[in-house]
């Protein structure tokens, strides 16, 4: 069980949250990118052996959406990597 930090409520049990998927690339302007780049935006998400950024929804809590960095090897919630935006 993970303790996820909600900006409103503080640290709460993972069971109160619903996983909202990985944080993907920013949505490009569909008119300004090639078909291949658009398809990549739609289908490819980072799949690192290590920290991944993901969205969580405090659904059985205050209702806040938040993002965390979580290490896929350990499930530890970690600091954002240096090079992350």
């Amino acid at each position: 069980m993970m303790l996820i930090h909600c900006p409103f409520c503080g640290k709460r049990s993972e069971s109160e949250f619903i996983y909202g998927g990985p944080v993907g690339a920013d949505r490009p302007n569909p008119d300004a990118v090639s078909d291949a780049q658009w398809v990549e935006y739609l289908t490819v998400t980072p799949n690192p052996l290590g920290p991944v950024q993901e969205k969580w929804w405090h659904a059985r809590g205050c209702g806040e959406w938040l993002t965390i960095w979580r290490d896929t090897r350990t499930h530890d919630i970690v600091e954002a990597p240096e090079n992350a935006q």
Partner: protein
Amino acid sequence: MQTYNIFSLARNALTGHQNWQKAWRSPPLKDQYDVVVIGAGGHGLSTAYYLAKEFGITNVAVLDRGWLGGGNIARNTLTIRSNYMRDESIPFYVKSVAMYEGLTKELNFNMMHSKRTMVDVVQTYPKMRELRRRQLTMDIYGSTYEQISTEELRRRIPALTGGGPDARLPVIGGMVHTDAGVNRHDAVAWGYARGADALGVEIHQQTAVKSILRGTDGAIQGVETNRGTVRAKKVVVAVSGHTTTLTETAGLKLPLRTMNLTAFVSEPVKPLVDVIVNCPDSGFYFSQSDKGEMVIGGAPDMGQSFRRDIKQHVFEDTVTAMLSLFPAFKKLKLMRQWGGHLDIAHDASPIMSKTDVGGLFVTAGWWGGYKAIPAGGLTLAHLVAKDQPHPLMASFTLGRFKHLDFVLESGTTTAR
């Protein structure tokens, strides 16, 4: 290859089992092959076997960073079935199930195949409608699905005592898939390894691929391993779960996420359940092994994960769901639990494909990919040998993403 039969068994018994040949060789690693297959799991080994057997390509090396058959193939719950949803999927799995049924003969290795039927315990009307819809599509392709009443369901599975009329999700009926079965995963890995080896394929264990090498023209040159460079014009990635880790070394991005799927087993008990029981509305499934253990699986943990154990809340949720339908299982002691990490595309269908990198092939996105090992290997070998997709897998190439022509497959997971 020495054959396994009653006479060889008797002969070797007389000599104290000292004279069995090794099931496969351990030759020195060469620096060049026609084809390098990365990953000695079910898919890598079957691909190598059919490359040699069906297409005469025998200068093949299968490389594994661990021991062969020690990956997800050793961690799965062995459910072999073809009750899928899509026109693209069903014929593929029908073929794979049929190949499994003939595999003991094909490989001269006892697969301990037990065609014991899978029974779905249905608790919601939407699920019942979805499964009946599957039934209609499956009928077209010769797979079996049949609806049964709650009474018949309880007759077939006497241990199913929960889910009565007052339950939150009462049992409303069942579906029966008679093609389904289980077999022995070690036999599958060892059988294919032995068969491939006998045809000239080399299997190299403890050989980890660190990166995929491309030439100046961008095409594949080979792989870099912990034992040096191995060259090949064709490289197959069959590493289940680690696909993106490897393909990224060749600058290739794939639409895959790696997730954790888990299982656990009980202590052995007397024969109690003789079918594979699947409870999609509650989110768990199980079968009883020959040893008597209940082999139980649940729903995946949703986030990305490369862990090989089970998360406590996934375990608790699965047990809770199971006890609601099988309250007597409360007395079972649970002995072992584990997980595997598998990659999945968001349409939940596999990817067997050429890639944008010339000579690089992938077989990935195998969520329930144990059942697919025979047909997956055969059709991928076809693609690698002929450069053309086999008709049974033509819909599963990367091309479907280019055209956003997904094969959304609700039949991929057993539970849910």
